[in-house]
């Protein structure tokens, strides 16, 4: 390029680019910040209600009740960032738990029965993926359909009975490693792994690209369908693991395990600042939101707030989080 004669052009249009925001703003004004602040507030309020909240063991123990849903919410976060959604995994947890329990009751050895549960998870993800990707149907509708379908299948398999699991399989939540209940540990490890994958691998990068602008992503040669299919499989598998962990925690399996759990999963992702229209969000946000939700729910129980009122609080929390997220994104995106 002949540069000499162009210096004039380069200097001329002063308003070519807007000035960048100060770095501290870029760093601080993120949706996770809101989650973090809410978490701190919740901790302060809760510990003033009950000194138990200053006891880490009590918080960890409370968290085991939500750890399974929170695990799935992590994968759901990635799914939403990629521009799709899956509302079926709570039903999927129940279905996988039921196939697992049914198989072991029928005499299949436990490791094989776990395999059956995992395969169920894969199959559920595959079905969702095929419907959304091959048939180009909107994932929100498809997965509402499979939400009902998987729950129904679980009921067909288990009937109205509780299926018991062997004594030694019960109580994963009471096994402590370094003083941490296993479900919580699994959740933390999964957070670290998925957080790394999403933020630092090309796979994660392409998920953001697809979610931000699917057409531009296609033009840039990104194979969105493969990535989305892998996410449906991943969330299916995760749901099946979470389902079997729930079975171990409860000691028996019913078709109504994790009933309505999809709402808590969505709540965690939204509270964590995931943008419902895709392209933005983080694992850290959902990680913090999971803790926030546990502390708020437990805090309300400790404070003897009526169950109906607790639901209201959660609903309001969800709406506030969506408003705040949208507000923050509209500010940071001129």
């Amino acid at each position: 390029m002949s540069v000499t004669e162009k210096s004039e052009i380069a200097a001329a249009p002063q308003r070519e680019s807007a000035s960048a925001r100060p770095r501290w703003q870029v760093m601080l004004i993120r949706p996770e910040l809101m989650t973090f602040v809410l978490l701190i507030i919740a901790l302060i309020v809760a510990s003033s209600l009950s000194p138990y909240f200053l006891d880490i063991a009590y918080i960890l123990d409370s968290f085991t009740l939500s750890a399974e849903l929170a695990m799935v919410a992590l994968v759901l976060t990635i799914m939403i960032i990629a521009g799709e959604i899956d509302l079926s995994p709570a039903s999927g947890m129940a279905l996988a738990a039921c196939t697992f329990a049914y198989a072991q009751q029928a005499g299949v050895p436990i490791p094989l029965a776990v395999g059956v549960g995992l395969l169920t998870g894969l199959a559920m993800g595959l079905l969702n993926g095929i419907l959304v990707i091959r048939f180009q149907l909107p994932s929100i509708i498809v997965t509402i359909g499979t939400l009902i379908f998987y729950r129904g299948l679980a009921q067909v398999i288990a009937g109205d009975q509780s299926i018991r699991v062997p004594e030694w399989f019960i109580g994963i939540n009471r096994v402590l490693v370094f003083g941490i209940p296993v479900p919580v540990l699994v959740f933390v490890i999964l957070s670290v792994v998925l957080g790394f994958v999403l933020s630092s691998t090309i796979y994660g990068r392409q998920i953001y690209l697809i979610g931000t602008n699917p057409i531009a992503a296609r033009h840039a040669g990104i194979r969105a369908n493969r990535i989305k299919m892998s996410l449906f499989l991943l969330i299916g598998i995760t749901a099946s693991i979470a389902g079997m962990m729930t079975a171990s925690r409860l000691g028996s399996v019913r078709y109504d395990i994790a009933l309505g759990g999809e709402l808590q999963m969505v709540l965690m992702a939204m509270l964590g600042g995931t943008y419902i229209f895709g392209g933005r969000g983080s694992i850290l946000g959902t990680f913090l939101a999971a803790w926030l939700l546990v502390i708020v729910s437990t805090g309300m129980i400790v404070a003897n707030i009526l169950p109906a009122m607790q639901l209201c609080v959660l609903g309001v929390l969800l709406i506030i989080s969506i408003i705040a997220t949208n507000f923050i994104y509209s500010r940071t995106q001129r």
Partner: protein
Amino acid sequence: MAANSTSSATPLLVSRGISKQFSGVEVLSDVDLDLMPGEIHALLGENGAGKSTFAKILAGVYRPTRGTLTMNGAPVEAYSPIHAQRLGITLIHQEPISFPDLSVAENLVLGHERGSLLGRVHWAGMERRANELMDMLGIRIDVTRPMRGLSIADQQMVEIARALVGDSRLIIMDEPTAPLTPKEVETLFGIARKLRDEGRTIIFISHRLEEVQALCDRATVFRDGNLVDTVNVADVSDDDIIRLMIGRSLKEYLHKQRTTIGDVALKVENLTLPGVFSDISFDVHKGEIVGVGGLVGAGRTDVARALFGVEPAATGKIHVNGSEVAIGDPSTAIDLGLAFVPEDRAVAGIFSSLSVEKNISAAVPGKITSGGIIRRALEHAVASDSVKKLRIRLASLQQPIGELSGGNQQKAILARWLLTDPSVLILDEPTRGIDIGVKAEFYDMIGELAAGGRAILLISSELPELLALCDRVLVMSEGRLTANFDRSEATQESIMQAAVPRSADQEVAA
């Protein structure tokens, strides 16, 4: 400023010191302009020069930061499109905004109808009024038809007629001719002249200087947010106007570097996608720039999309560097050494909320990772190298690309594709919507890329661009290739001749 014939009359609208800032950046400074009744006044300037901002202030879309507007001696104070419309100022949009399922007549009176008792609509009266307006404009459109299915030209006519319903004194046309055929442009001009002769004022925004010469009485040129000059169109030449717009003449920008033309890089045979394009055959050699001219909707973009696998052709053969290939999706095309800078940057090009860095590296995962893990330092180096090479102006590589100007966004997209080291580069209207200054840089870059042995397919609606840059010019019309001109045969006339749709028998002859 040249004296003009209407100077004795009282101005319709007087602008004094009109300025506009967007988030602290001044995009329009101290515009003083008198608009006379009964004149067609062109606003000219590069994109971002301030002419559209000024027009939008007149139409009440933006509120000026400073300055005053006076209409017929009375200050204009409240700014909103509705208020402007009540004052008799109407902005005609380039892509008319209307209600596609309502009839023409309904669209015409919408917002103007006077609700009668119980809000009943007078259908017959409405149609009669609509027909009167159409007659006044001398156009024939069935007013009972729905807007959907009307050509863009007819939709524009309806918008203009709508302005007359409110008896607008000032009608602003923002690039009205861009989507029109030459014949439709003539009709539009006829109507504009008629309205002028009735004493109305028309503001005409266009990039096509020949249209300004043909239609306008006076022209005001903007540059970098300032009003540079207002001239009588009859007194000046195109070159004078260009000099005012860019501060120097266009010839200095357009120069083709001579390159050696090598082997065939891309060969297309009988490419067909039913209903879109058919029987397209051509080739592009290494080091060659082949232009594709034609009207909007001639199928040029569709051929490019087919070549890149976005929407593959149904039949036909594609050869890349000598071997036949099947391109089913863009990732295959990229692996084969193709690159495609699409026409619609916002839809198919940029990831608006993501950083410039991530935008630049989007198509070359292999260059920023090792073992699937992104190496930030590597990515930063790759991106900042591109920014330097293409002289992309930005505040920071971490800045969302949506904050950059159109020209710099386009440079970033080009940078993305140059990183893939393509042997065939398809550019679809690469300079649309970018400043002349940045355009010049693009022309140089395209020339250099060809000189570097790349084959370039350049789709452009700007004839001077095609003529100045290309070694050969293909022309498409209604989904067919109608001409393949050598550099020496291509002229504005010959390209337009081939671009305008003909009846079937003439086509065979061609």
